[in-house]
């Protein structure tokens, strides 16, 4: 599925959405969501390959993969928050979109907290050794 097919799908979805916007705005939103879902499904396929390759590289470098796993989780949370935020913004609900993105940021903070803690401990040890 090369890029031109995906662009074609996006344009077709946009055209249907515009057609429907005048008579049934809610269906226009559904068409936009359907197009988004299809494009994201294809993107996920490609993303899966990228992650497996990067995972392999990280394993070669011998770095502890715990940090890499958290990084992937953070990307996933931001990915979901962004999808739903844009859907809400497309439906005209800017406030809800902002709320969802705030929740996403909070979850990312939650995920990153252990790493920040270990990082600070390393710094403190380094300083105490001076």
């Amino acid at each position, binding site marked *: 599925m090369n890029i031109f097919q995906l662009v074609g*799908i996006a344009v077709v979805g946009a055209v249907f959405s515009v057609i429907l916007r005048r008579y*049934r705005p809610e269906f226009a939103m559904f068409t936009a969501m359907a197009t988004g879902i299809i494009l994201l499904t294809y993107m996920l396929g490609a993303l899966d390959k990228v992650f497996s390759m990067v995972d392999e590289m990280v394993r070669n470098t011998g770095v502890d993969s715990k940090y890499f796993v958290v990084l*992937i989780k953070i990307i996933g949370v931001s990915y979901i928050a962004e999808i739903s935020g844009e859907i809400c913004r497309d439906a005209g609900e800017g406030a809800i979109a902002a709320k969802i993105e705030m929740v996403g940021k909070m979850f990312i903070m939650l995920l990153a907290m252990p790493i920040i803690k270990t990082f600070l401990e390393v710094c403190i040890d380094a300083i105490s050794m001076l």
Partner: protein
Amino acid sequence: MEVDLIFRVAGIGIIVAVLNQLLARSGREEQALLTTIAGLIVVLVIIVQQIGELFEMVKSIFNL
């Protein structure tokens, strides 16, 4: 469910829009409203299933 998801949703939307106009013009506002609501429910069910599938895929890839 690939590209035909768009055509299915858009088709239902167009049909409901046409039916709505038809019923509204012929004086049956209630039926028009009921048709719109029925179409809305059908599309909502399809879209919610698709979003569920997408989120399952995201969950598996990002191992959330």
